[in-house]
């Protein structure tokens, strides 16, 4: 069977070789990249701009962005017909292609995140290594000691001056990371926007729209995870009070949580408005100029994909959360609903761009429909089906659990370091 045949339905006249070649994984790719930067930008708010309330969540989101990081190219890897040849992109980069620079951009960003984390956690690594060295007798301890010793990279100096210069390095890296993160997304938009053969994709607005919606989704995920984290902390604190060794700081924590959520949601609204404005501008412009491709695009947007675009993306994903956040006296429950809807909206936007762009034939005389494979009966239907997407979506949490064993995001003091 030809690649794409299993999930592509053709209607009217479609060129014989046309199929939905870019499927769910290419929807996941810009979605995951958006989340990576969102997490990073939030951590930068504390490190660069010194938003004190975000101290705890800053460490959380930095580790989280490292966990998200390998999951951004994962969908690309799963989608390749020759995944084992992925390194060819680095070996013989053909720079007239928008994809060619992916490895470089991605690795630059990865190095920034990794080195920032190292500076943040260096003190902790040293403390752990020293503690384990004194204690260490079992083989597990020796292994852990070896790991932490390796992670220190031989930098054992934890004097005030050394830690201070660590902080300076963190600040610098966090600041340098913001434009690189934005570039990573604009770049994903350029990959689509520069395909002149595709009437729906080809617009210079695509990179800007991608950046704005990426920031929207990033902030939304951060607000959501922040709420989840704060709730967990409150639960833990309650448990501590119950066991008579905690402090009754629950009310304060709740107040602080709401303040931060309210403040952050303002940034979310700004970028949401910007993203919607650009998307609507694009739509209006296409309709007004009505070039040759408009007839088929119009039929895709207003007829075939109406529910996905106007109900799921604009209605549920943009308008409803917009109202939820704009109404006075924001509550946590409403913020959770709002952020979930925003994430749905951004996901649907990616879907409508990637799948919607392939919903019509290049002949402008027929349509194609993507039927996402649900049950993975083969490797192909797993990779480019629902479970492949869920695998990509779930991966960051597995990695986060793993990373947070080495780089704890809460209660560093428990481990005897600052």
């Amino acid at each position, binding site marked *: 069977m030809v690649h794409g045949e299993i999930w592509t339905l053709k*209607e009217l006249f479609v060129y014989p*070789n046309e199929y939905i070649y870019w499927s769910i994984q290419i929807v996941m790719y810009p979605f995951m990249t958006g989340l990576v930067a969102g997490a990073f930008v939030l951590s930068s708010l504390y490190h660069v701009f010194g938003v004190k309330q975000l101290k705890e969540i800053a460490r959380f989101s930095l580790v989280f962005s490292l966990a998200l990081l390998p999951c951004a190219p994962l969908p*690309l890897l799963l989608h390749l017909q*020759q995944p084992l040849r992925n390194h060819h992109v680095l070996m*013989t980069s053909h720079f007239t292609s*928008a994809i060619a620079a992916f490895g470089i951009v991605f690795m630059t960003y990865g190095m920034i995140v990794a080195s920032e984390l190292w500076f943040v956690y260096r003190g902790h690594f040293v403390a752990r290594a020293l503690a384990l060295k004194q204690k260490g007798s079992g083989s597990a301890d020796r292994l852990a000691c070896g790991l932490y010793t390796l992670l220190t990279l031989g930098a054992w100096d934890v004097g005030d001056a050394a830690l201070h210069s660590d902080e300076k390095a963190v600040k610098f890296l966090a600041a340098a990371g913001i434009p690189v993160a934005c570039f990573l997304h604009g770049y994903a938009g350029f990959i689509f926007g520069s*395909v002149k053969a595709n009437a729906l994709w080809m617009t210079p607005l695509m990179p800007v729209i991608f950046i704005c919606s990426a920031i929207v989704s990033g902030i939304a995920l951060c607000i959501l995870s922040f709420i989840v984290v704060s709730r967990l902390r409150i639960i833990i604190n309650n448990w501590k009070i119950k066991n008579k060794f905690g402090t009754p700081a629950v009310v304060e924590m709740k107040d602080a949580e709401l303040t931060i959520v309210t403040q952050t949601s303002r940034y979310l609204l700004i970028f949401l408005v910007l993203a919607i404005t650009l998307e609507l501008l694009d739509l209006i412009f296409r309709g007004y100029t009505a070039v040759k491709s408009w007839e088929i695009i119009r039929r895709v947007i207003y007829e075939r994909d109406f529910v996905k675009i106007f109900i799921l993306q604009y209605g549920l994903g943009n308008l409803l959360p917009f109202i939820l956040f704009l109404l006075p006296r924001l509550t946590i429950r409403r913020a959770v609903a709002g952020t979930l809807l925003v994430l749905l909206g951004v996901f649907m936007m990616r879907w409508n761009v990637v799948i919607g762009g392939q919903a019509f034939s290049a002949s402008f005389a027929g349509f194609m429909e993507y039927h996402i494979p649900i049950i993975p009966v083969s490797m192909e239907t797993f990779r480019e089906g629902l479970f492949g997407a869920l695998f990509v979506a779930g991966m960051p949490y597995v990695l986060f659990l793993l990373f947070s064993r080495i780089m704890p995001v809460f209660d560093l003091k428990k481990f005897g370091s600052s």
Partner: protein
Amino acid sequence: MISRRQFCRKALLIAGGVALPLAALELFDPKRLRAEKSSKGDRRWVFLVDTHKCVGCGFCVKACKIENDVPYDAKVSRTWVERYVIKKNGETLIDSPNAARDGFTTTRIDQNLAGMLDVRDEEIAKAFFVPKLCNQCDHPPCVQVCPVGATYQTADGVVLVDRKWCIGCGYCIMGCPYGVRFFHPLYHVAEKCTFCYHRLAKGMNSVCVDACPFGARRIGNLRDPEDPVTKIITTERVNVLKEQYGTNPQVFYLGLTMEVK
């Protein structure tokens, strides 16, 4: 004793040197540079399709599939034939059942999910066949977008794919406005019409040219003014497909009308 700073500096230098791909050094290969600069050799393969002569028998598609190792029953093809039926009310109906491998065996139009469409003879204003194949563009977007340089243009204008280097990202398939590219069902890499480059190299014709019983398909060398194909292209009214994409396609058509997509 080497200091840590120096160690880091040297380690980075070595890592950088090792990471430098050997391909980068190739940039300065003078032979290649000269070849690229003076690419105006004595050969530029072009194709001429006379739509008046095509009867939609599909022999070209059949021959192509067999010659070029594209699985016979796979629903992809390097070349195909489209049937256009333009009704008196202006409606255009197009189909290419199974890429016209077996020709057009029924007067009903294959509309895929929308079923087979009956068109009465008296409704038809005009009807004709249009063979399609890779346009071997002068500015091929597929070559431009390939991230690894696995697809490239030869000096005589034909665009080829290196099956050993293609990573199968599909960007070239997305980048082609003509829909000529697809993934090879067996090799799982990008696949396309090559004008039968392996035959051209031996002084033979593309297989579809030889298979066409009516002379609807012809191949020629644009740099040879005496070539009969070149003479037709330069002296008669020919047209190309989708010139608005700026690809400068090199498959020329006689009898192309505005309805052709």
